[in-house]
């Protein structure tokens, strides 16, 4: 496979430069899945590249000007074509364009449009019941974040648990998502927002056999990290976004001011000891700090057994990082990402189907490693039996690891 046809390379390029929709695709416009929901970054389309690599590619004209990529349709099949500056087609590969979930058109029993409750990204059903970013409320959202920039009047009220369950049922019934991914913008509580999500997580645990990922802010006390695992969260992120302290202050004022970089790192380190290997992650947005700094961040996180996920596209219009994002510059960072995680023997199989970030296993292409075993294990979890085994093992591990204090006293025979 030529380097420019590696799915991870294509993902990087597509994420950065977008894809132009050919007129042949326009006839499918209503059935394709535009990224939507409360945390939509920009109008984009989810594509599945070879090796099950998901990418969310911007499709709006202002974001795709100059893109060498064109999405074409031939009947029900879709092809991604790349053209050189002369207009000659250099690459053409078949891709899967993900259709828009049918539940987006439906409403819950309470009359709430389902698309407002949850959005599908990759194989994850992303739910943000709070519907608001706490940093945005305090006037200090991350500069590259559209959600944080929304005005207060646009914010949604907290979604009722019943609505969330109804939407998850609808999404699972039509096979639009495999996992549930909760997001909370709350931060100004001891629990870092997990207490707000707890009723939702417990309800999902009781009604569905699925894995739950959660992205919240670090709690003030590590005991909340333990409780997060105990309540049934399978994967956890405290998103640092930027490793360099100055850049963090510049681009993520809320994170730097109200929580602080060190607290993010402490909480991540503790979580990595509690959660299974490879299930604690943080995004690092490439392009907002120097490549060297991102690589230092990758090393520091991997040393704590935290999985760095390189995020390549948050809307660039606000902060202007797009100009800094140049694929040849990012390639060494991604190669380093794979090598660092591999060297620390962190499980790479859990992070998959992320349309908005490049996982360490996807980054193997940049390091020239096949990672056959890790890929094979991850492939297994895509089958029904493998997925069942993964869920069962996660539950079993939790039963072994989690103890209440009263159990400990009983065990001590005091």
């Amino acid at each position, binding site marked *: 496979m030529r380097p420019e046809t590696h799915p991870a390379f294509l993902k990087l390029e597509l994420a950065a430069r977008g894809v132009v929709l050919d007129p042949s695709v326009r006839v499918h416009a209503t059935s394709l899945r535009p990224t939507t929901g409360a945390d939509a970054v920009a109008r984009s389309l989810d594509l599945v590249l070879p090796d099950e690599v998901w990418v969310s590619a911007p499709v709006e004209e202002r974001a795709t000007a100059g893109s060498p990529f064109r999405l074409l349709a031939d009947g029900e099949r879709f092809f991604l074509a790349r053209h050189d500056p002369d207009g000659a087609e250099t690459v053409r590969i078949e891709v899967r364009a993900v259709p828009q979930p049918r539940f987006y058109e439906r409403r819950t029993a309470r009359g709430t449009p389902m698309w407002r409750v949850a959005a599908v990204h990759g194989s994850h059903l992303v739910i943000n019941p709070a519907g608001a970013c706490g940093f945005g409320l305090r006037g200090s959202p991350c500069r590259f974040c559209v959600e944080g920039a929304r005005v207060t009047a646009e914010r949604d009220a907290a979604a009722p648990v019943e609505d969330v369950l109804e939407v998850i049922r609808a999404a699972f019934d039509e096979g639009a998502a495999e996992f549930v991914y909760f997001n909370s913008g709350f931060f100004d509580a001891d629990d870092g927002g997990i207490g707000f999500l707890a*009723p939702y*997580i417990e309800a999902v645990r009781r009604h569905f056999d699925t894995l739950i990922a959660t992205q919240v802010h670090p709690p003030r006390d590590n005991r909340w990290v*333990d409780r997060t695992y*105990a309540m049934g969260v399978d994967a956890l992120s405290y998103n640092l976004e930027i490793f360099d302290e100055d850049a963090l202050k510049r681009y993520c004022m809320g994170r730097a001011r109200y929580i602080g970089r060190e607290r993010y790192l402490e909480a991540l380190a503790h979580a990595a000891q509690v959660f299974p290997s490879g299930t604690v992650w943080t995004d690092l947005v490439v392009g907002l700090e120097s490549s060297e700094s991102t690589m230092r961040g990758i090393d520091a996180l991997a040393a704590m057994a935290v999985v760095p996920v390189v995020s390549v596209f948050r809307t660039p219009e606000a902060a202007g990082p797009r100009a800094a994002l140049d694929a040849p510059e990012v390639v060494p960072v991604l190669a380093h990402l794979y090598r660092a995680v591999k060297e620390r023997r962190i499980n790479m199989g859990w992070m998959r189907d992320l349309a908005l970030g490049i996982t360490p296993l996807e980054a193997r292409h940049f390091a020239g490693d096949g990672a056959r075993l890790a890929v094979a294990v991850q492939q297994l979890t895509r089958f029904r039996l493998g997925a069942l085994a993964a869920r069962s093992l996660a539950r079993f591990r939790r039963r*072994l690891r989690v103890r*209440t*204090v*009263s159990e400990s006293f009983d065990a001590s025979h005091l």
Partner: protein
Amino acid sequence: MAVPQPSRAEILIDTRPLWRILAERTYRPIVLSTGLAVYLMVRTMPPPEGLSPAGQKALAIFVLCLVYWVTSVLPLTVTSLLAIMLLPTTGVISAKETYALFGNEAVFFILGAFILAAALIKCGLSSRIAIAILRRFGHTPRTLLLSLFLMNAFMSFFMSEHAVAAMTFPITLEIARVLRLPREGSNYARALFLAMAWGTQIGGIATLLGGGRAPLAIGMLRETTGQSYSFAQWTLVAWPIVAMLLVAGWQVIVRFFPIDIDSVRDADAVIAQKMLRMGRPSVREKWIGLVMLATLAAWIVGGEDFGLANIALGGVIVIFLLRLLTWPDIEQYVNWGILLMYGGAIALGSAMTRSGASGWIASVTVSRWAHSPLQVVALISAIGILLTEAMSHSAVVALLMPVALGIAQQFGIDPRVMAPAVALPAGLAFTLPVGTPGNAIAYSSGYLRLRDMLVPGFVLVALAWLAFNLTVVYYWPLIGLAIAR
């Protein structure tokens, strides 16, 4: 739809390697299944030569109880109840005989001793005695330590060593606190808590009142051979070992933990304050003390004629006649479970001997390793003293006594020798907190590390075994307890 809030119970995440947690969690079902499998295997194997069918069944029950007693996967009491249930249902002995064994004199002697000890503790007389001894003798670091050591030993002559440890622990802790002894690195603190734990252990073997081991061993001896010990005879058998161990224990403590403080004036003041707060002895204390003394005298003088259990129950009845105690008081202090445990152990031991299973075990184990009566006693005492470091004292007696009686028969050893040969070493646990509640209580103070108990404890265990065997060889023949008949 109501969604329950997450539990706010304190959560602990066990971050040890998963295989270790798994091993710990699956330990109980594995041991329970192993016990059952071994039971079925022994039941169904072709009968070994020299073992009757009833003996084979008794052996299977014994092996099952052995696994469960040693591993403590079930409470000791429940394992005993299991034995009681299996003996008649498998036809080893009839139900009538089984339950009759449960009414053994030893069980009622222990019950009486527990109730008398409860009276001592409840009225505060035991605390008064402890405080008085410390007040009288403990004015320097050395005398305070020695009086604590001897006081614990002395009190364990008259009441259960576990009760003594529980009673003197708060006093010891307070002494350590007022002397401002650091939790780490204080020799004097370590010496104090070891003196507390070891004093009760050593004193506990001196009489039949220090714990249930001796009455249990005597009960099993009586059921099997009809022979017994009086209160005074037992003390006569045990006292040289107690004397040697008191000297050895003191030496080990002060050599391993040389005294590193100059004054105990603060502790002295606290003890004086406690004494002052207690005031004069109450009428109830005086009466209970009197009843206790009378009971002791009766045990010594008339134990053989009237029976130890009868005298103990007589003392209890007098206490209630004088309204010195109420029944709810008793319920707080008496360990009813241990009574059930003893009943089951006596029934199993008797069934083992009657069916010939204990003789058969003896013929295939100790009989092959030991070639003279002296070697047998040395081996039995070594096994007992090692097992008791990690096992309940009573469980050790329950396991070893039937086998020891079988061995005695084969080697022509006086079976009476086997009761102290099993029960005395089984009371000497010095190395591990799990060996006995006294050690566990001392360890829970936080002043002792495991190493502080392990190394000096091992030295004392070796000295104890030596002292025991010297007593067996040189002293017991002098009081008419010859190994060989």
